[in-house]
């Protein structure tokens, strides 16, 4: 590939901004200067879909109505562990309002569905596991019809409690470990992490050094156990689809974080080429990590549509959402840290276990491994299987649980060494980004007014705390955008990428407008449709960093094509042209210009289009991270145990900020999630029945508006010189540090540490009693 060299801004303005030379693909645009010199990017531009959203014009998956559409519902297991002896659907098949019935087998693909016999019934391993679906003329008919299905279960022993599942003799979620068996052909199956009873692991990450030696050399060693609860996703829009199956392809409206992921799975399951499956996600009401893939509900809707010959809508109700659509796993996190007298860390050792029900992914992330300098590190992370529905990725998977332990213990070590927790991070943290964030955040927050722990007089005490986070700069390279110019003046950017509600549409419009010298409102954004070039999945904070460089690159290529067509009309050559303020100018001769709209009218064809993809990171992949520092102030009533978060100051980086208001909005959301995790949310399961007790919002506590504190954000401009936009996401980083910043503030208020989330009034009172 041809290359060229760019000089790009590099570093943090006002701190260490400089320039760096980067070798980049020859067809990529010139480097943008810092945001202060740009017109559309880096500003608080109003969301392009704001009006559509507030007027109800925006259509979400649950709003989709297709001619002849049926309503799907699924019958779910009431038992956490059972064998299905028989399923009798004869009565429901005779129901006049029911047009299709489908039983999910062990293999739920079209090929697998041909065998709906008892041999093909899956073993039930959790309450809410879907078994039978119906498509009816309306929702109520579907719900009533499901009552006619008769299922004969053989109920089996189960375990849903984390600690009981670890015990010897506990009912097994998965029978014999796979590695003990051989295939039919005698070939031994490759070993994964070991499974003993319900305990899988440990995963050992990337250990370094010698922790025992490190602890032996330490002047101080502290070991603690931190416990976090199961945390639900609670998206406003539940999981769901509308599926229209036809012999030559499928049309799917999906509430998803990955249109192409859903497309690919439907294609595999129903025997179509990917090009025969179209997935649309025009608007989406939040996912927070849980909305990947077709989903069993989606496949059920596909089968019901295929059988009935009509479109089928299958949206989960709130109870189904909470019971079956994922959660952040709980954790028990044993953490031991050693440090020298000067504060330098000498060893970190962690051991954790948690449960994602029948699924994996209950670790505590890599934040303890990566955030601070420490020569000796070891981890052991275990998954415990239980008879509960599977967990799902949840905004910074593992990192939130891990940060609660790490940042609590770092706080404690700082105190033991008689060093201010803020200054202590200066000693152990190499990140220049977090260093600046600490300085700016502390100033805005008023950290210097922080008192000694527990010293506030009276029963109602104030406290201040802080915590940091780390999140890798990851991107998804299979990210493509197309920019189309129309002779009638329209400019469109198109991609399959979906907008979860975070503002992807708006940043795409900003980036294209900036490149073409237009206004954001001049750009039409068409995304969330697999008819367009593939966009990235939206997870792990990769969207902005993946798709905006592709969009800018496509706009640049479209611009060059346009220049080639109109240069002669300005008596110049294409290389002399530039765009600004809605016009195309001859460089150095501003009087020679043409409006962008007039230039489009002179195109040789009705449309001009260019497509481009995300290139590899300029300068190669690096392991540097997106950092944040959050400060919290709380009020704790020591007589009632009631905690109120008064204010949060959040200092964040996400490379080049594209839209300040939208970034603030995402940070606000992350903080609210964090406060809710720290103080309120917790799934409750009845150990005797395996039932989740608080399956709806009248029982599952989330914060009300009056529990949201004053939130101030500091958005650090930082230029890593990695792509044509240098932008990164903020979804994950916004959520990691909040809960532990709050619990560190609670400690500062009352002088007693709490090691288990959520910090309820009862835990505060209990801790004070024990102190």
């Amino acid at each position, binding site marked *: 590939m041809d290359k060229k060299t760019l000089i790009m801004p590099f570093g943090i303005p006002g701190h260490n901004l400089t320039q760096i030379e980067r070798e980049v693909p020859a067809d990529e645009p010139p480097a943008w200067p810092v945001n202060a010199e740009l017109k559309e990017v880096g500003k608080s531009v109003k969301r392009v879909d704001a009006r559509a959203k507030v007027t109800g014009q925006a259509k979400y998956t649950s709003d989709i109505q297709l001619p002849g559409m049926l309503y799907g519902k699924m019958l779910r297991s009431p038992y956490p562990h059972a064998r299905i002896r028989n399923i009798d659907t004869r009565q429901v098949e005779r129901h006049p309002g029911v047009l299709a019935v489908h039983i999910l087998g062990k293999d739920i693909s079209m090929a697998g569905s041909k065998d709906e016999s008892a041999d093909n019934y899956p073993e039930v391993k959790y309450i809410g596991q879907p078994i039978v679906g119906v498509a009816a003329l309306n929702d109520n008919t579907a719900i009533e019809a499901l009552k006619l299905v008769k299922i004969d279960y053989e109920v089996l022993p189960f375990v849903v409690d984390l600690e009981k599942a670890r015990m010897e003799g506990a009912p097994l979620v998965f029978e014999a470990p796979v590695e003990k068996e051989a295939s039919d052909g005698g070939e031994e199956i*490759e070993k*994964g992490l070991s499974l003993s009873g319900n305990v899988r692991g440990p995963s050992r990450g990337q250990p370094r050094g010698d922790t025992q030696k490190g602890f032996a050399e330490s002047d101080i060693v502290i070991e603690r156990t931190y416990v976090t609860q199961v945390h639900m996703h609670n998206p406003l829009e539940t999981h769901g689809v509308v599926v229209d199956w036809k012999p030559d392809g499928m049309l799917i409206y999906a509430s998803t974080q990955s249109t192409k992921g859903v497309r690919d799975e439907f294609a595999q399951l129903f025997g179509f080429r990917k090009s025969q499956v179209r997935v649309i996600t025009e608007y989406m009401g939040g996912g927070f990590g849980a909305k990947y893939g077709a989903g069993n509900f989606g496949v059920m809707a596909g089968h019901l549509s295929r059988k009935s010959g009509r479109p089928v809508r299958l949206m989960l109700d709130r109870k189904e959402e909470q019971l079956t659509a994922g959660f952040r796993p709980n954790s028990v996190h044993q953490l031991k840290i050693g440090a020298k007298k000067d504060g330098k860390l000498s060893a970190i050792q962690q051991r954790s276990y948690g449960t994602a029900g029948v699924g994996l*992914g209950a670790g505590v992330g890599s934040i303890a491994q990566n955030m601070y300098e420490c020569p000796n590190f070891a981890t052991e992370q275990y998954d415990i299987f239980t008879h509960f529905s*599977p967990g799902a*990725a949840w905004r910074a998977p593992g990192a939130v649980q891990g940060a609660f332990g790490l940042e609590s213990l770092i706080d404690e070590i700082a105190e033991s060494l008689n060093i201010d927790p803020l200054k202590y991070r200066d000693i152990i943290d190499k990140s220049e980004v977090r260093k600046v964030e600490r300085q700016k955040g502390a100033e805005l927050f008023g950290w210097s007014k922080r008192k000694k722990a527990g010293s506030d007089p009276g029963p109602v005490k104030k406290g201040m705390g802080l915590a940091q986070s780390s999140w890798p700069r990851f991107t*998804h390279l*299979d990210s493509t955008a197309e920019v189309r110019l129309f002779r009638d003046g329209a400019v469109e950017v198109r991609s399959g990428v979906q907008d979860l509600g975070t503002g992807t549409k708006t940043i795409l419009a900003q980036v294209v407008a900036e490149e073409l010298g237009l206004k954001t409102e001049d750009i039409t954004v068409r995304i969330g449709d697999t008819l367009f070039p593939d966009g990235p999945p939206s997870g792990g904070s990769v969207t902005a960093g993946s798709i905006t460089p592709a969009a800018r690159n496509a706009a640049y290529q479209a611009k060059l094509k346009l220049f080639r067509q109109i240069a002669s009309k300005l008596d110049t050559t294409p290389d002399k042209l530039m765009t600004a303020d809605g016009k195309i100018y001859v460089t150095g001769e501003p009087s020679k210009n043409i409006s962008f709209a007039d230039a489009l009218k002179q195109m040789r064809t009705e449309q001009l289009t260019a497509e481009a993809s995300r290139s590899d990171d300029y300068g190669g992949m690096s392991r540097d991270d997106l950092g944040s520092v959050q400060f919290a102030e709380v009020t704790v009533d020591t007589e009632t145990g009631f905690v109120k978060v008064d204010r949060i100051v959040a200092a964040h980086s996400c490379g080049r900020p594209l839209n300040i208001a939208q970034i603030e909005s995402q940070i606000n959301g992350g903080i609210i999630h964090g406060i809710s995790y720290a103080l309120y949310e917790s799934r409750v399961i009845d150990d005797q029945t395996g039932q989740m007790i608080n399956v709806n919002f009248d029982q599952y506590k989330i914060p009300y508006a009056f529990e949201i504190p004053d939130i101030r954000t500091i958005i650090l401009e930082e230029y890593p010189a990695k792509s044509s936009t240098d932008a990164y996401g903020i979804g994950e980083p916004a959520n990691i540090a909040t809960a532990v910043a709050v619990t560190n503030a609670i400690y500062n208020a009352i002088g007693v540490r709490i090691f288990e989330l959520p910090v309820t009034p009862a835990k505060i009172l209990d801790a004070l009693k024990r102190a």
Partner: protein
Amino acid sequence: MKEENHADQNVCAYLRAKNPFGTLEGGGNPWLHLDTANTICWCVKSQGPIGPDARYVEPARCVSGRSCYTSPEFS
């Protein structure tokens, strides 16, 4: 926590995974490093972490020799 590279491994065509960094791996995509403690895995054919053979789903086990395994070549 990136510790296992399955790029050289013939992982089942129906395995999917979402690691903490959001990378959707598997199927037609090359397998990248996985964080085995924090990655969510699922089988396309069962739409969950329980495979059609009632065992759990993960890259190291969804390989040739498992009864429900499908080679990427034949998907």
